[in-house]
């Protein structure tokens, strides 16, 4: 299954290497990759498409968020990652 991530990050040296390491260690193939550098100190934007199932995509998303320079990760395909049960838990009063 292809998963698309939109990543915003501080445009700092080493960002791409760290991102690549996460995918390499998980042995996840990159299907598409685009990078737009930050202008005037603004954030860089990365669009990334990888081949991964839901579980591993969720894991990758959390790893991406752990990177110091990454400020936002949005998965635009599949179900939202890091889907903790409490997020869908509905509490009702009698």
């Amino acid at each position, binding site marked *: 299954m292809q998963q698309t991530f939109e990543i915003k990050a501080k445009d700092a*040296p*080493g960002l791409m*290497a*760290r991102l690549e*390491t996460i995918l390499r260690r998980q042995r996840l193939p990159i299907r598409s990759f685009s990078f737009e550098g930050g202008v005037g100190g603004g954030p860089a934007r990365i669009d990334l498409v990888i081949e991964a199932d839901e579980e591993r995509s969720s*894991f990758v998303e*959390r*790893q991406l*968020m*752990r990177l*110091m*320079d990454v400020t936002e990760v949005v998965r635009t395909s599949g179900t939202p990652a*890091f889907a*903790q*049960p*409490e997020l869908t*838990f509905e*509490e009702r009063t009698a």
Partner: protein
Amino acid sequence: MSAQAKAHPKTRTSSARAMAEELVALGVTHIFGHPGGAALPLYDALHGAPIRHLLMRHEQGAAHAAQGYARATGRPGVCLATSGPGATNLVTGLTDAMMDSTPIVALTAQVATSLLGRDGFQEADIVGMTQNVTKHNWLVLDPDEVPGTIRHAFRVAVSGRPGPVLVDVPRDVLQGETSWEGPDVEPAEAPRRADPVSLRRAAFAISNARRPILYVGGGVISSGASAEVRRLAYKARIPVTTTLMGKGAFPETDPLSLGMLGMHGTAYANWAMHDADLIIALGARFDDRITGKLATFAPHAKVVHLDVDPVEIGKNRKADFPLHGDAKTVLRQLLPLVGAPHTNGWLEKIAAWKAEAPLAYEQGGDVILPQFAIETLWKMTRGRRPIVTTDVGQHQMWAAQFWKCDEPNEFVTSGGLGTMGFGLPAAIGVQCGMPGRLVINLNGDGSFQQTMQAMATAVEERLPIKVVVLDNQNLGMVRQWQDLFYERRFFAVELKNPDFAKLAEAFGAAAFRVNRPEELGPAYEAALAVDDRPALVHVRTDGNENCYPMWPAGQSIEAMVVSDPRKKKS
């Protein structure tokens, strides 16, 4: 800007001096380092600073010493190396700190910016090399950014899940002038709380479990949550097992303690995990040395998983009740919500397991068993609450089994990476951080020889650490695996060792030699009496002894061997 910073007028100074003053302001008391050409501007700036620099004899030892300091004190340890080989020698220690979530700050000098990328003398891309073994790292190219980067690095090291960071500064940047406004403080990150709904679900699961078990890892110690773990265990009457990194988070002499679990853990801890209906994992990560074959691990259990790092939750074992947050904070939230489950039957079953398969050995004859050597010293010193460091191998596992820890931060070892050579330099760091405490390094003959040059530093600094070298003339754990899994084809494991006592004396340490069981007590007494330099006790032990229980890697719990089958036959 803080009030502290306002007291300082804006001055022009070298970034190296600004860095040194930032380190002082950040509370750095010790730096474990080794100088070299590129680092000289920083060393010059540290000259006269109120920071004690320990001249390590190898940078790997500097990183491990920083780890020891951090693990004993909870504050970041600092190591310092020059460019090129100095920096690359730190990599093992950084990786070890990454695996064990230890906050250390590595400062490395780099060749001048004009030489970067040109293969200059002693140039190594240490930032590139350590990207994967640090929480974050920085190459600072502007003198004005040096002080702020140092402040930020310290904050990153301790925030969230602690870990190592590295700051690399080229020589000319260290020498460059900066408009520095004096030290500042970057406010600490607030501990993360768990959301209330998740908490209530976890509390309900705990309150209604019949066979719950607390599985406690190093995250509890990092978070300072040992008191909360005790309150939870006592309130809910839940047995507790700890990982190697979690030793001391719960008193191991308490009846609710099951000791360490996993490959060389107690049989009863592993049986309890297997049979549990609820595993409450606190700051632990279900690594392969704990679970064996994941598919058959704890088949009846639901899992409450509390961790500060969301990447760990569900990474190896699905979390039915995830709790993302700081262990201490979340446990304080959780405690009022938890009732007392009915665990009497469960505790009785565990008591029967404890009686069936206790940790045991039989010290007889003239050859010293390593377990006996370790337990004898534990019994002699337990009233003094020593801090013990271990190295890696069989002696480490026996120490985990027989050195009972009742308090956190008193068992310092290399858990995740399993780095031989960790123990002695780590003991140096521990002793620096805890100068009034008794510090003991339990070591093996193989591992001691990987970083034994650190003894020179310990002597130079008159550190009264006690080093016990358990000398079985083998790389014991490798030998054990060849014995059990490679049909006793022993290869590349036998060690023709030096006389460790003479070696220690050559360094200037006190030294004692033990060949027979009855000599242990007097030798330990004599070593414990030495207070002005290190003391080494060289103990010749049985080279044929294997470490049990043993749960072979990647297998199900049925494969666990509780005791030495050869001894049963005899």
